[in-house]
Structures are given as structure tokens and as C-alpha cells.
């Protein structure tokens, strides 16, 4: 995992954050991410993120559930073991609707949650670098990645001008690893730093 350098700016107010997002995009800095304690509506649009298509995945899981259960029950009651139940037709579609509905919902829900966890790389025992601990409490934390062209001090003063209440520079790896939150882990050697600032 590559070690990169980041400038972290913390904002107390949503308005200041939205303003900062707009200014950062205009200035052309590389915005790594914004961490917020709760979902801010419109922030994804402001940051230029595309819409998520997790609901499309959900639809695909849902119809898989429907067809799988319909196909399975059809095969069981018409081909594998046709059973005479009160002289009713073997292909008893109305009686299968409850199970088809339940499997539709089950597949969609389980599939979507697993997809969500996969896309966001969330799982038990996964540890990530957290730029600011109060990002889950009351601060809106904007992180800018330093590239070869970025002047770190310029970004720091830029954040200060935008009304950030706290600004700092951090070196971090942004992936995930297996680890414990009660242990400080130095995952990377400072000497192998790859970014020149």
C-alpha cells in the first residue's frame, strides 16, 4: 500500500464545508474525501461524485430470488416429485406467491447489504486510517491529497482562509487492513515515503 501525504481540514458548520468543497474544486486540488458524522444531502453532488447504482444491483438480486424460487418449486412439484395435494394442479402458481415474494425480498436485502459491504470495504476486524476522530462526532473533515504539484503550505493556508477550525498534514495509507482499533499500528516505514513535497 502506497503512503501518501494529505492535508486535513476540519469544519464545524455545514455551510463552511459546502463552500470549501466548491472552492477546492475551483482551485483544482485533488480532493481525497470528505468525512461527515451524518449524511449531508447534496454533498455528493457538490463533490462531483456519481450516483450510486447499488439499487440496480438490488433489483437484479430481487429478480434472481423470484426466478430461482419459482423455477425450483416448479421443478420439484412438476418434474422431480409430483405430489397429488387434494387433487389440485401440480403447477400451483397462486399458492407459491408467498414464497416467491419472500425469496425476492430475502435475496434483494442480503445481496444489497453484501454488495454495500464489499463496495465500502466494510467487515469485522477491518481497520482503516481515520483522519480525525471527531469525524464521527461533530466535525466535517475534508482531506486533500498532495500530488507532485501540490504545495502543502498553500493548502493549509487555503483551509485556514475558508474557516477550518483545525488543519494538519498527515501521512497515511488509505486502504484497509486487518487490525485492532485498540492498538496503534505503524503500517509503513517513514523512510520508504514515495511522495516528494
Amino acid at each position, binding site marked *: 500500500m502506497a503512503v501518501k501525504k494529505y492535508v486535513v481540514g476540519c469544519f464545524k458548520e*455545514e*455551510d463552511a464545508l*459546502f*463552500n470549501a468543497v466548491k472552492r477546492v474544486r475551483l482551485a483544482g486540488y485533488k480532493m481525497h*474525501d*470528505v468525512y461527515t*458524522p*451524518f*449524511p*449531508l*444531502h*447534496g*454533498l*455528493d453532488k457538490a*463533490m462531483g*461524485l456519481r450516483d*450510486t447504482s*447499488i*439499487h440496480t444491483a*438490488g433489483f437484479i438480486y*430481487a429478480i434472481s430470488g423470484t426466478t430461482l424460487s419459482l423455477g*425450483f*418449486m416448479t421443478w*420439484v*412439484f412438476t418434474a*422431480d416429485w409430483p*405430489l397429488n*395435494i387434494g387433487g389440485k394442479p401440480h403447477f400451483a402458481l397462486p*399458492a407459491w406467491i*408467498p*414464497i416467491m*415474494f*419472500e*425469496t425476492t*425480498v430475502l435475496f*434483494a*436485502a*442480503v445481496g*444489497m*447489504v453484501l454488495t*454495500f*459491504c464489499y*463496495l*465500502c470495504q*466494510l*467487515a*469485522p*476486524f*477491518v*481497520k482503516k486510517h*481515520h483522519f480525525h476522530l*471527531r*469525524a*464521527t*462526532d*461533530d466535525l466535517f473533515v475534508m482531506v486533500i491529497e498532495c500530488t507532485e504539484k501540490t504545495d502543502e503550505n498553500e493548502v493549509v493556508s487555503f483551509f485556514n482562509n475558508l474557516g477550518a477550525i483545525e488543519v494538519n498534514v498527515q501521512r497515511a495509507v488509505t486502504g*484497509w487492513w486487518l487490525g*485492532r*482499533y*485498540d492498538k496503534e499500528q505503524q503500517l509503513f516505514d517513514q523512510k520508504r515515503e514515495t511522495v516528494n513535497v
Partner: protein
Amino acid sequence: MAVKYESQVRAPLIEGNKDYHQVTEDIIRPIEAPPSLLWWIGFLISVGLLLFGVYSVYREVTYGVGQWNLHKTVGWGWDITNFVWWVGIGHAGTLISAILLLFRQGWRTGVNRAAEAMTIFAVMCAGQFPIWHMGRVWMAFFVLPYPNTRGVLWPNFNSPLLWDVFAIGTYFTVSLLFWYTGLLPDLATVRDRARLKWRKRMYGVLSFGWTGSTKHWQRHESLSLVLAGLSTPLVLSVHTVVSFDFATSVIPGWHTTIFPPYFVAGAIFSGFAMVQTLLVVTRKVLHLEEYITIEHIEVMNKVIVLTGSIVGIAYLTELFMAWYSQNPYEGWAFMENRANPFSPYGWAYWLMMSCNVISPQIFWFRRMRRNLVVTFFMSVIVNIGMWFERFVIIVTSLYRDYLPSSWSTYYTPTIWEIGFYLGTFGLFFTCYFLFSKFFPVIAVAEIKHILKKSGEQYKKKMDQVERKPVEEFYQETHVTHH
């Protein structure tokens, strides 16, 4: 950014002078403090009840279903009554978390976490009854459709009892996923505040490494919305399928088409009553009166009087149809076995009527809806009534069958049947006590989301702005970055 606005007509959902950090403090502080004496007493009583339940079930498994007083004609008694009762209680949680999300009801944020937890624990309790009722419980897995060595025999997909397996199984799984994905950000908040090593470690594992990234929130919002959309028909289907257990039979008193909507309304009715029972106490003990306000309590009491009245209409419709159909068996089941106060179980029918239909009418009065003592008392009364509803439906339809020679038997439970029921109370409250100690009982992130719209001091500020001339109002509400 859009103007955050909520009408001044609506009372604030979050009282007091709060900022985001204060919200975190208020809700997470009980987790970080050592449990109180009251908590220990409640928890140990619950564990005691649970152990009594375990012993009762042990007796039933060892000596057979004969440990219960079920007999020929009354083959379903307390067990299935309790099953339907617990499943029904679960329904309020999903109604609050899913249906009210789709309806954009802001007040749900104060109560949804605890109500969803209640759903999960109630469904866990409900599931015990059909499983142990099987008698030979080690064969319970026969209900699953898997390739087997029994000549490949499959379960009967046309049977409502199998639909129930799928409905309850799906309901439990989806409720659990919905609840836990909502918990992830709040568990991360607990983790990041933690100073103790074990707590940081435990919540580190539980929070799945949540960071609060904007992209993650975007997916999380989409996921919650779709799960709410899926849970809404799901919750209606679950009690519909439970009612099919009865309605698809030809037993007088069960064989009616009114059952699905009638059962769903009754489920929401009893579920909201249980939410009230839990939250009236929880808000007091954990000092969360500013988040679960009297407004919340009042709104839920309105739901109780509405659904209670729907249930009342269903009772009257059943009686009317029993007479109007001119079916002698249906008429006998209703007029003689149930509504006649002098028949063996007439007392149960009229207890149900007075608890479910007559007494909730007190909530037409605002003063009563906002009275915590009345609310708590009524919530218990409603759940007693709803338990008797299921008892009346099951037992009064069974204890007098088509063969009058078997009518002499009056069904009363044994101590082990009662013990099993008490044991599920133990399971439910043990889980609830653990939940209220280790998890945030209010959705912290969701409260922060509505704070600037529905918080008391923000609404006051907005009220002042609203009274200003239009030009000034425009200036104040359209912030610079537009």
C-alpha cells in the same frame, strides 16, 4: 444548500439547546457509564425468567408435548397464541423504521433504533414457539428444502405453515440487516470516543471500520431507502401469512377473508403498545426525555387509537358476517363460543373487547395521550388484550369441534406452558437490557441529520427569521455559496 425548513406548527423533535457534540454526549453517555443498580436488578430478573423458560422447554423436549395441556381438539393453545402475539409485537418496529421512512415522518428518528431492536428480539421469541411445538425438535430442519436421503422428499410449498417458515425467516434476516447497517455509523462514533482498550477493540470489530466517507454515506442512504421499500411489503406479508395459517383452514371462526388486514392492524396495535412500554421507561432511565419527547409518545398513542379502532371494526365485521352468512357453524362459533358471556370462554372474548376496543378510546383526549402514567398503563392493557385476541381465535374455535362428545374438556395451561411463555419474556428483556447497555438506543447520526430542522433552538431561530420582512428573510436563508 437547500433551506432546512420545518413548519413552526410542528413541535420540535429535539428539545433543549443542542449542538452535534451534545447529541453524541447525551445518547452515548449511558453506554460509557457503568450499569446502574436498576439495570442489574432488571437484567438478573430477566435472566432468571429465561432460565425458567429453558427448564420448561427442557421438560417439554424430554417428556414430549404431553407436558403441555394440549389435547385432542385443542391442538394449538398457548404456544401458537404466544407465537402470533410475539410476531405481532415485532411489526411496530418495522412500521416505524420502514413505512414511516417512506412517508418522511421525522419523528421516527427518535424511536426507530429501539423499536427495530424490539422487532428483532420479538421475532426471536416468536420463532421459539413453532420450533419447540414440533415435539421432535431435532427434526426441525426438515422444513428446509434441501436434497436429502428421504427419497428426496421436499416440503409442501403449498402449505401456509411452510410459507410461515419463509416469511418469518426472511422477516428476521431483513430486520437484522436493516437494523445493523443503521447501527454501523453509530458504533463507529462509540469506537472513536472510547478511551478503554476493550471498548475500542470491541466497537472496532462491531463497526466494520466505518469512516463516514461521503461515498459510503451515499450508498448507505440508498441502501436504507431500498431496504425500507422492501421491508414495507414484507411486514405486511408476514402477518398476512401468519393469518393464512388460520384463514386457509375450514375451521369455523378461522375461515374468513378478513383475517390478513385484521391481523396486520392488530399487529401494529400491539407492537406500538410494546414500544410505549419500553420507551416510557427507557427515556426516563437513560435521561433521553429531550429526544423521545411527549410529542413522540402522543403520536404513537394516536397510532394506537387508530389501529385499535380498526381492530374493533374487524371484530364487529366478524360478528356481522357470522350472522349474515347464515352458516350455522360460523354462527355457533361466534355467537355461542365467543360472544356469549356465559359460555366457557366468554370471559376471554369480553376481556379482549374491553382491552382492545373500549379502553384505547381514552386516547381521543389529548391530555390522556400526553400522560405518561396513562400511556404506560394502557400499553400493558393493550398487550393483554391482544394476547387474549389470539387466545380467543385459537382456543374458542378448537375447544368445541364437530363432535359434541369431546366438548367437556376445558383447556388450561400447565406450569411448563406458562414457564415457556415467561421464558420468552426473559429472552426478550435480557436482549433488551443488553441492547440498552451496549448500543446507542437512539440513532445518533439520524438525530444529527434532523437537528437543524427540528431542534428546539434552531426552530426558535427560524421563527425569528420568518417574522422579518421578505428581503431580510431572503438574505438570511440563501447562504453565500449559491
